[in-house]
């Protein structure tokens, strides 16, 4: 493992560069194919509405995959992420237009742990609502 961030250089409160990730219907179709999750709530508006959703929603796992990019981009080697957990609090609603939705992700170092590990807490929002709760990663630094 070869991370670019050093444990000694990180302090509690260190903010990671925030990022915004776009998501359109096309993104969801591509993710469905790559992940094998073909649940129609992620591409079929009629079906989504019938089961009580406002519109097509992004896969929770898509949002989870985007959010951790703030950490893997920061640290360089994705293998540094040794633990990662989230709670899916609100769906990311993806309208059928050219713009779609955006997922905004910020993160900061919440604790320094033993063995050169740090805990990073993430915040992910879409349309002003928090879409991931208890979103935390443990990152192995050098």
């Amino acid at each position: 493992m070869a991370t670019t961030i050093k444990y000694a250089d990180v302090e509690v409160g260190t903010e990671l560069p925030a990022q915004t990730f776009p998501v359109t219907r096309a993104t969801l179709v591509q993710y469905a194919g790559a992940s094998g999750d073909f649940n129609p709530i992620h591409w079929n508006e009629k079906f989504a509405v019938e089961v009580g959703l406002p519109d097509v929603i992004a896969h929770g796992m898509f949002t989870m995959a985007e959010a951790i990019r703030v950490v893997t981009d920061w640290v360089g080697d994705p293998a540094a992420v040794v633990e990662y957990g989230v709670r899916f609090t609100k769906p990311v609603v993806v309208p059928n237009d050219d713009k779609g939705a955006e997922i905004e992700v910020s993160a900061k170092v919440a604790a320094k742990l033993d063995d050169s590990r740090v805990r990073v807490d993430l915040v992910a929002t879409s349309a002003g609502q928090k879409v991931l709760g208890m979103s935390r990663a443990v990152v192995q630094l050098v």
Partner: protein
Amino acid sequence: MALDQSFVGRSYPPTAPYEVGREKIREFAEAVGDTNPAYADRAAAQALGHPDVIAPPTFVFAITFKAAGDVVHDPELGLDYSRVVHGDQKFAYSRPVHAGDLLSVTSTIEGIKSLAGNDIIDVRGEVHDENGEHVVTAWTKLVSRAAEGA
């Protein structure tokens, strides 16, 4: 209808090995727009000390969720799968998943709860490689939402 508590602690046999493919990892990384070279360029991954391209942290879910699906589709359990949503997800890695891995999953039901008509089930998937070494543990919480008027 509340689910049968006697399923708590039940483990299911290991799944048939899933071979992690280099192109499948690339396809997944492209789908989430991630250009980290460790996912697509073998030399770049090796420069970081990995034997081959590695998978993004959430890639393994496709494998563990399929294994969890065998559990939640167990007709004896009686979960209404059409109303299931994903509640929580967590991964804890011993090492990253990389191309060429042959992974099998052993799923265990860790908890069953009924809350306001919702059935909540926690499944733990232990993922091992072809040598029997632990790679990652995935915890998946699934919520079967109460039917309207129920």
